[in-house]
């Protein structure tokens, strides 16, 4: 009788299992695997603000340091050290604490000692020296990055700005910017600087063209789709100044009141500093009547 349980229980077990299955199905009949998403914190959250939050960065630094303790491969160690440096640098940008910048620099330098063949490591160290206003050290690092990767567009960009604004090498800046634009045509700020150089050289048509390109690319990026990680405030500055220069050029060299007015209004919208706005209005009053609004 006990040899084959199923002879005796041929009905019991199927019924039992069916009843159990039915119970579970009824118990969870209202359950749906697919739900509506939870409400989002903010639809227009800035990436740097969100990912760069203090808590997140601290966790990331801890995890990366743990990784560094475990990793034996030299190449991976170099990347980890560099990533820790970047996390410290992000932290510095939100808190503006000098010790965080020191840590970022230390990790960047360490990563270069560990792995000296990655252009990005030198570029980021160059950014630290730019932040510290140690321009010659910054220049050396950008140049080293370009030796390793001649088309490193951000190193070209930063070295060009350094030459133009801090070292006074206008021709070098121009050559670097033209090379950067050849690599990446929609690179922000470059056209503004090239426009300024053209203005200084008296090439007004070229200046007009560069300023127009700058404001066009800015309007393209204003939806958040920038092609390289350039500071938004710097892009804003370059665009607003380009609008102002265009307004002046259309008022003085290429007489076109409609374009001059449109560009000046665009400048007023972008310029956050009221004193600069007032100064610009005063400047424009030399050329044409500006309404109070």
């Amino acid at each position, binding site marked *: 009788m006990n040899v084959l349980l199923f002879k005796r229980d041929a009905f019991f077990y199927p019924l039992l299992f069916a009843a159990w299955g039915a119970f579970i199905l009824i118990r969870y009949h209202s359950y749906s695997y697919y739900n509506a998403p939870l409400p989002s914190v903010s639809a227009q959250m800035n990436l740097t603000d*969100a990912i760069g939050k203090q808590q997140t960065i601290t966790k990331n630094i801890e995890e990366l340091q743990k990784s560094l303790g475990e990793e034996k*491969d030299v*190449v991976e160690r170099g990347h980890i050290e560099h*990533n820790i440096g970047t996390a410290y640098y992000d932290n510095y940008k939100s808190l503006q604490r000098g010790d965080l910048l020191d840590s970022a620099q230390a990790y960047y330098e360490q990563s270069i000692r560990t792995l000296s063949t990655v252009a990005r490591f030198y570029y980021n160290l160059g950014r630290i020296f730019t932040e510290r206003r140690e321009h010659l050290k910054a220049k050396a690092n950008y140049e080293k990055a370009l030796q390793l990767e001649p088309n490193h567009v951000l190193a070209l960009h930063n070295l060009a700005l350094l030459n133009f604004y801090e070292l006074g090498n206008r021709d070098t800046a121009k050559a670097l910017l033209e090379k950067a634009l050849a690599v990446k045509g929609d690179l922000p700020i470059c056209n503004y600087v090239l426009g300024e150089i053209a203005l200084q050289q008296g090439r007004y048509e070229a200046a007009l063209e560069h300023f127009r390109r700058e404001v066009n690319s800015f309007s393209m990026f204003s939806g*958040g789709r920038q092609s390289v990680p350039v500071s938004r405030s710097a892009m804003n500055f370059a665009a607003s100044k380009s609008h102002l220069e265009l307004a002046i050029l259309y008022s003085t060299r290429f007489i076109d009141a409609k374009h001059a007015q449109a560009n000046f209004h665009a400048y007023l919208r972008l310029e956050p500093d009221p004193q600069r706005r007032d100064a610009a209005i005063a400047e424009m009053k030399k050329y044409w009547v500006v309404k109070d609004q």
Partner: protein
Amino acid sequence: MTNKFKANTLDVVPPRLHLFSTIGESVRIRFLIVLQLLLFAWQFSPQLCTNGDNAKYLTLGKALIEGRGYRNIGEPEAPVEPQYPILFPALLGFAQLFSDNYIFPKIIIAIIGSLAVVLCYLLYRTQPNHLLWPLLTLVTTSGLIAEYSLILMSEIPYLFFSLLALYLREKSLDKPSSGLIFWLTVTVSVMPVNCRSIGLAFSAAWIIDNIWSKHYRLALMHAVGLICTIAIFRSFVPSDPYFVQLIQRNSYDPDAGFVTPAEMGTRILQNLSRYGGILVRGALIPFAHNLPPFVGRILSTLSLGCIIIGWLRAFFIPGKRFVGIYLLLYAGILCMWQPQWAGERFLVSIIPFLYLMLLYGLDALVSFFDPSVPRPPGDFFSRLSSGTIAPSRYHTPLTVWAAAAVIMAFNLDYGLVNSGKRKEPTPDWRNFYSCADWVRIHTPPNAVVMSRKPELFYLRSKRKGLVYPFTHDVEKVIATIEEKGATHVVHDNFAWSATTARYLYPAIAAHPERFKIVYALKDPDTFVLEVLPK
């Protein structure tokens, strides 16, 4: 009620326990099955377990029933699955025909879990009552068997097919003239290896034991079936990732290369220490609470000691040699496996066998030290491990039942405490799943999402996905995004894994211009980022 099969086991048939002497075996086993189903119902959760393998099985099953082949349709290029054997995904594919919220497949697996208890009874019904019923009670109340019966993993079907094959073998040997039972036995015997790759241990043990017992037809036909099924599977997928993983130093770091013989020796020792020290005890006597370490150490030592004695004994008990060989081979494979993957999960499929060995060992120990029990001749070792030790009339059953009651209490506590944890996702998983819900509603069907758990994300979001490469080189991460055409990235905040902080975050921080937050959640911070074109 007498049982003619009892006389074939240990030489001396032990007396029946008074507790159940008037209750028919069928009623007892019914009681145990009802008890198990009640425990299952208590612990049941409609949520999918978060380990990821279950999602992959479900996806493969879905691909099979949709006629798309044995492919990972949740990955961008839908590659052929090279790793997981086909049987369990096929079973889940069949179950998905009737349901789209995965409750029905869970019911099927839970019923298979219950049937495993019935098979345990059928297989070990010839054992003395003081071993059979504690064994069945332990299997019924096992916290890990209950857990794995409810989470859509292949361990329980594997256990079921193993037990079924062994039971059918017994039937086939009992009725050698029946061709139907013979071929059914051979067919079922190759199912374990087609359910889980570690079933190779089962197949090897099957062949060895049948040759040893001179059942050459069973051994030969099993070998033929094994070769045929593996050859068919490998004709579609030539490479075997499991073999590569076995000899890799670390599969999470493929560049680290392959192990040397000395490193393999160290790995085996590490695994032996881990399984012997913690995991075997954890599988048989799981703790739901933090207990003083000495409790774990004492229980580990006792349980492991009993299992080793029971394992030695299995070679002397008629018809139980297979279990001894099987456990030896199974342990051998586990010890060669990469140490970071060692876990109780791999023991779930052999829990009934381990309990049996534990009870054999306990029975031998108690009988050995009981002066009223007649001793067989021989030295200490052979007397201890002998299959012919006669249990005492009172002490042995009482001790075995007392030990079983303690183990059962730990298991019930584990099952009941952990059931609450499985019912609601933790905040990190809640946010991760919410991201999947958002992606399902707000992205086009051809969106590709990079996340830490792409298999689970695919099931919920119905969008293909991939995991980010585990490298600190941010350019490689960005290159993978480009190469695979990822349109979105999920920056999770899992408490159990730091890989997103280690590998994905640096890539996003290095290229903020390539990402835009489109969905954000707090507590913990979790984001869906859209990948912007270059």
